């Protein structure tokens, strides 16, 4: 797997797309010491001296390894639970789990898992549920009781914001009572919880009793390894975990796992500011940054300015939500965000800020404007994560301030219809995640999956940004579509830029890391509608070869 030092290997390919405009394509790439020596034809590479030719990719198409700028290790850990999603999804070992397309199908899927459990009272947990696609009917505790009346069962929704619980699970958490007075616990005719628990607070006591360890779900060794396997399957060579507390005792394990010879990913975890003062967070990030290795890039901070659009907690400007819901919540005090920005600029620590609603985007823009006056930093590359409801005026201010955007392109496909009909209405749904406007205005941007909220898969994300089709087939916001070439740039160089890594990765270029996505087809040649279906053979990471099938 690893290449001996100083040896040169030239890989022949059907085609190599470099993302380097001065040498956009080639048929051969020379690799030495895990880096790219050159790309072109066999003839142009001969000058580098002795080499060994490797033909295994002769029928494949190479692109720079994909970079996922906003994902979570939960994409790997969730697979230890039962997948209950509506769409087909591939697990880390390559098994494709067919979508469960009705409540009955979800129940059947859970029953299969139930029958493999020996202890009749052992909890059962599923994830990925999206009842939005089941029409008006909502899943109740009685539906889950059909799997087994005595087994406590919980199913987390795809959004991560709602959990369905069985009667036994509700009883286990002490929820089976008639005096609930919580907006997140809808009741049935008997004044008992109907089985849907909305929002992290209402869900948590049940998840806790089911033994679902949210900390473990957000990443442990096994989860990180599974996540890395999924990265190989999707052509991803660099991925973020945005965000994690990165406790002290996790650092050694992160260094060990990412340092293993067979670890196929450059892993970029951002530390969450929660639990720290701005000063404490920046100091800790500086300490972490110093421990970075090639495959573990530490020293970034994540903050949440607001919540989610579909949870109606994203912070909205006038006129707010389309259905009249209140204007959302702040998850940080403006003073704290300003202090964090100022300290981040002062010490060169990059801040990624979760902003979904347009008011949250305003706050981040104004906070950075103030902080930049005190600490002018021409290349800070602070990123507004999701940034879904930015309007053009906000994009122009972002451009002026050097703010990057990481748009949640997958939202169109999964929740675009809900955004159009319920959350923000047609006007704003059509311009959500404005890739085209950002590009025209000159805001550096990338696009992301927020895995496990939606599946890890940069080509799928690119497909979403190119086509802007919703799950129902609606074209939502034709104007904001981007060409295939721009979408592919967004998931390579674009994402690398937002991580300050564009000098190392994001293109196949002399001196850069030999990180390639190895594809079965040429994404520049297939129909734009088929972009998501381009096969992925695997990856090359720092010159090491990883076949998806063998991962």
């Amino acid at each position, binding site marked *: 797997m690893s290449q001996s030092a100083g040896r040169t290997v030239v890989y022949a390919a059907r085609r190599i797309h470099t993302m380097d405009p001065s040498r956009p394509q080639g048929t051969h790439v020379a690799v030495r010491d895990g880096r790219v020596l050159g790309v072109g034809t066999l003839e142009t590479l001969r000058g580098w001296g002795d080499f060994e030719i490797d033909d295994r990719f002769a029928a494949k198409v190479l692109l720079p390894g994909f970079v996922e700028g906003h994902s979570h290790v939960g994409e790997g850990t969730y697979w230890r639970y039962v997948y209950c999603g509506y769409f087909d999804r591939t697990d880390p070992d390559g098994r494709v789990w067919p979508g469960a397309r009705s409540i009955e199908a979800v129940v059947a899927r859970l029953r299969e898992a139930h029958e493999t459990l020996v202890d009749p009272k052992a909890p059962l947990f599923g994830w990925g549920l999206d009842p939005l696609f089941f029409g008006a009917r909502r899943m109740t505790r009685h539906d889950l009781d059909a799997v087994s009346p005595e087994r406590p069962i919980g199913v987390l929704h795809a959004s991560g914001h709602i959990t369905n619980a069985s009667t036994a699970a509700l009883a286990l958490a002490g*929820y089976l009572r008639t005096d609930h*007075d*919580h907006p997140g616990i809808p009741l049935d005719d008997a004044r008992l919880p109907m089985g849907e628990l909305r929002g992290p*607070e209402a869900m*948590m*006591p049940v998840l*806790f009793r089911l033994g679902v360890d949210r900390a473990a779900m957000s990443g442990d060794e096994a989860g990180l390894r599974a996540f890395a396997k999924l990265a190989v399957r999707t052509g991803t060579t660099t991925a973020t975990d945005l965000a994690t507390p990165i406790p002290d005792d996790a650092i050694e394990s992160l260094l060990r796992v990412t340092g293993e010879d067979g670890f196929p990913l450059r892993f970029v975890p951002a530390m969450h500011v929660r639990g720290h003062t701005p000063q404490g967070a920046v100091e800790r990030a500086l300490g972490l940054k110093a421990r970075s290795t090639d495959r573990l890039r530490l020293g970034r901070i994540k903050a949440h300015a607001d919540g989610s659009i579909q949870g109606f907690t994203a912070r909205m400007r006038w006129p707010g939500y389309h259905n009249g819901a209140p*204007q959302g919540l702040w998850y940080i005090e403006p003073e*704290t965000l300003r202090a964090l920005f100022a300290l981040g600029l002062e010490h060169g620590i990059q801040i990624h800020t979760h902003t979904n609603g347009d008011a949250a985007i305003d706050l981040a823009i104004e906070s950075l404007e103030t902080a930049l006056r005190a600490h002018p930093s021409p290349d800070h590359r602070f990123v507004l994560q999701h940034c879904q409801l930015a309007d053009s005026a906000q994009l122009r201010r972002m451009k002026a301030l050097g703010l990057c955007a990481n748009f949640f392109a997958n939202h169109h496909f999964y929740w675009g219809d809900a955004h159009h009909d319920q959350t923000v209405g047609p006007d704003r749904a059509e311009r959500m995640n404005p890739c085209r406007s950002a590009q025209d205005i000159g805001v550096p941007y990338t696009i992301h999956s927020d895995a496990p909220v939606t599946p890890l898969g940069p080509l799928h994300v690119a497909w979403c940004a190119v086509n802007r089709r919703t799950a129902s087939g609606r074209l939502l916001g034709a104007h904001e579509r981007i060409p295939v070439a721009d979408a592919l740039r967004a998931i390579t160089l674009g994402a690398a830029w937002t991580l300050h890594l564009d000098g190392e990765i994001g293109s196949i270029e002399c001196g850069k890391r030999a990180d390639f996505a190895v594809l079965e087809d040429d994404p520049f040649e297939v129909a734009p509608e088929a972009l998501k279906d381009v096969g992925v053979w695997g990856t090359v990471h720092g010159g090491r070869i990883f076949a998806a099938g063998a991962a």
Partner: protein
Amino acid sequence: MLPTVVVGGYLGAGKTTLVNRVLRGAGGRRIAVVVNDFGEIGIDADLIESRDGDVLNLAGGCVCCAVGSDLVAGLMALPERIAPPDVVLIETSGVALPGAVARAVRLVPGLDADGIVVVADAETIRTRADDPWVGDTVRQQLAEADLLVLNKTDLIGAQALGALHAWLADVAPRAVRIDAVDADVPPDAVLGAAAAAQPPLPPLSAGRAMRSGVLRPALGLFESRSIVLDGALDPQALARALADPALGLVRAKGVVRDGDGVPWVVQAVGLRVRVTPAPPGTPAADPAASARLVLIGLRGTLDAGMIEARLGLHGAAAPDRS
């Protein structure tokens, strides 16, 4: 059920100062301070005795620990981290909605939300309430308060203070308001009678229906009274009677027996009164225990005679127990 008090209010209002005050006046109560904020643990250094992992051991058997973004998970994991306290005090972040935090507390087995205390900076609260970013958040915090500690009143004049109270009566209609300087509020007002370190009551003498007495004359602005109730009472009627702003009550808690001898817990925080069945197996449900009410109110406003009249308990002696 472990009484849990939520302390909310915007950044800089004096939440941490208030928490330190309460810790200093704990009087033997073991308080667990749970900080649900951006990492700033502002416990006064002289109160910290030792550190046990991420739990601070404080003077008098109190503790302080932070919970991350997941408040409910943090509260559920609390028994693994600390010995059972007498009362939990949650200090929220400046943008938290304390009503939502209290609702979340009620979802945690073993915890009962026992009041929302909101601290407001008398000098800046009007400006905050009009702030384009957080104005609506601040107003909602005020609207959710049972007890509103109007802090730093020394920074504004009497006329401004009067105007502020008039405004707050509108913005925070269900709160009992307390003026304070340096968040100097008696711990009992914050923690409630539930967790009050009560001196033993005198033995009941035959034929006496009720006694009341001043328990803590040294509370400064506040006084506390204990009323022993021997006869049957309608708990709902009692609750309605207590929810009258004219009584000047800040907090009340007690056990009463209805006509069938069933014990009920009656709790008031500000103007919010709750009646719940006394949990079986607890002292409150013990048929041999005397039923009593502990009342905390503003000195001079808490009128024993008025309360007795409201409760329909006329003509009883009120021995001074100071």
